[in-house]
């Protein structure tokens, strides 16, 4: 079945919005659009990065999630203290499966939960003393940490604790960076501001630490930014870059270390995978250190080839030849993957609703497998993300910003995709509706999906999900005969 036409999509949006009160309808209408490839700017058709409406189900997170969970958390040798009540830290603890090499509790700390566990008395009398004590204890118990970051939870901002002063004093005492991060959950409309705050704190407290120090550079130094090594993603990307002759100095921040981050200003080119969460620091490095940055996409062979060539164009003929060599080496492998899985996946329709980069980045990978993305949307994107999405998506496809639980279900019922890619909050709703589903935040505990090795896993996972025999068993056997006539997709 072909995707919906422009009018059909418009009708669908109107129909879905019908249930809202007048004011909510007007507001939500601004967040839904029908893609038009001709458009240069998304400005006139979609509004993004706005406060979610009260009363609807939104999938967004908070600034703390963006800072602790996404940017700071995966740095393996920095201890990130969740400063505040205990729950935030516990639920943000290694939930994104940012893999790393190291011994947890000795020289790597991502999977551990460090928190000041606020009680009533800390709210009443302030938690600064507790924080100072906590830093002392950390230093005693985990002497191999390379630095500490203090991730504020909501109460810290509300009671006005001076974490900056405590951090400064502690940093002088233990002679390591102690970074106060003002990422209270109530800041901003989504986790997006948390990324920004985290980037700013890296800029202010870390990036210039080794300015003026000697560092042995090569002309081929690059840094991977915005790759959080989910299920090993950054490793799958890194080997491609290294095989083409580049030297990867730093990984931000999956499997990354403080030393790598401090050395990043010495690289020749910043490679930016997740634009949304790390463009801020790339822009800063471009201004202060004159390092150009480049967005790339390592999902699916078409985009990998394109990106490798784009990256190589910043370097000399050596690297350009290297890129061609890498492409040549991996093309047979990827062709084999496509030959195996494309017949099983051809023509299937996918709907996506993910976070910062995947709603547009994985489109190429699905297209390589012959699948069609009929709808996509972001939880917390800004308009610059939608500008980039318009180019990647087909004409007349549906694009939704901060989609509500109700809208997403209705869109799915009407468009009947064969596969949905979204997060854990949506997963079981759609499983119960009988629709194959993959989590695209955590790769559904699989991965990596980046790079050439990742593509093979991606294709296999999509096949296993879509062609799983369980989808034929959605009806109980005694209901089968009667229901054959009224074959309604539940």
């Amino acid at each position, binding site marked *: 079945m072909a995707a919906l036409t422009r009018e059909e999509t418009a009708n669908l949006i109107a129909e879905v919005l019908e249930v809202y009160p007048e004011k909510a309808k007007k507001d939500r209408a601004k967040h839904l659009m029908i893609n038009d490839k001709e458009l*240069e*700017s998304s*400005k006139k058709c979609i*509004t993004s*990065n706005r406060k979610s409406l009260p009363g609807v189900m939104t999938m967004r997170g908070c600034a703390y999630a963006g800072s602790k969970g996404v940017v700071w958390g995966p740095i393996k040798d920095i201890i990130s203290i969740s400063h505040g009540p205990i729950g935030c830290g516990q639920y943000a603890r290694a939930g994104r499966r940012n893999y790393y090499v190291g011994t947890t509790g000795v020289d790597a700390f991502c999977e551990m939960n460090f928190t000041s566990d606020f009680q009533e008395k800390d709210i009443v009398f302030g938690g600064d003393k507790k924080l100072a004590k906590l830093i002392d204890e950390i230093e005693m118990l985990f002497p191999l940490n390379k630095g500490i970051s203090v991730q504020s939870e909501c109460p810290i901002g509300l009671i006005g604790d001076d974490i900056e002063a405590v951090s400064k004093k502690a940093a002088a005492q233990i002679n390591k960076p102690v970074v106060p991060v003002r990422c209270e959950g109530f800041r901003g409309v989504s986790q*997006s501001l948390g990324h*920004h705050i985290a980037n700013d704190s890296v800029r202010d407290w870390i990036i210039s630490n080794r300015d003026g120090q000697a560092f042995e550079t090569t002309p081929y130094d690059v840094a991977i930014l915005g790759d959080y090594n989910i299920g090993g993603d950054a490793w799958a990307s890194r080997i491609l870059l290294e095989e083409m002759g580049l030297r990867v100095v730093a990984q931000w921040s999956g499997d990354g270390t403080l030393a790598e981050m401090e050395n990043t200003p010495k690289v020749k080119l910043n490679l930016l995978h997740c634009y949304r969460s790390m463009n*801020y620091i790339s*822009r800063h490095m*471009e*201004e202060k250190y*004159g390092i150009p940055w480049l967005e790339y996409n390592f999902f699916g062979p078409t985009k990998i080839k394109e990106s490798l060539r784009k990256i190589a164009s910043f370097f000399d003929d050596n690297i350009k030849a290297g890129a061609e060599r890498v492409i040549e080496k991996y093309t047979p492998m990827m062709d084999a993957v496509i030959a195996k899985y494309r017949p099983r996946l051809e023509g299937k329709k996918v709907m996506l609703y993910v976070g910062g980069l995947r709603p547009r980045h994985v489109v190429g990978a699905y297209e390589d497998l012959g699948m069609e993305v009929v709808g996509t949307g972001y939880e917390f994107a*800004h*308009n*610059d993300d939608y*500008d980039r999405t318009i180019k990647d998506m087909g004409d007349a496809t549906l694009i939704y910003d901060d989609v509500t639980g109700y809208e997403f279900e209705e869109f799915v019922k009407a468009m009947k995709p064969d596969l949905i890619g979204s997060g854990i909050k949506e997963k079981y709703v759609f499983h119960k509706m009988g629709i194959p589903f993959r989590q695209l935040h955590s790769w559904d505990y699989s991965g990596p999906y980046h790079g050439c090795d990742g593509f093979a896993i991606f294709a296999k996972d999509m096949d296993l999900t879509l062609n799983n025999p369980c989808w034929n068993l959605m009806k109980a056997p005694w209901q089968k005969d009667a229901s054959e006539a009224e074959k309604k997709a539940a």
Partner: protein
Amino acid sequence: MANIMIRQNAAGGLVFYLPKRDLEAAIESIEFDTAEKWGGVLMLENGGSYFVDPIAKPARLPISLRARRLGAAED
């Protein structure tokens, strides 16, 4: 007044960036564009306009500046 950043895109055009709002837009015209006087009114492709105090042309882009909003393009 807002902090803004002006950078050059791959095609050589100027791009305006307002970190506070994550607003990224190409600059359509810049009032003064000579070696000794650079800046003034910036017209953006999204219809907005900003004013930056003219300075000597920066040796290297991107550059962070303070800008005043003249015409709103927001929403």
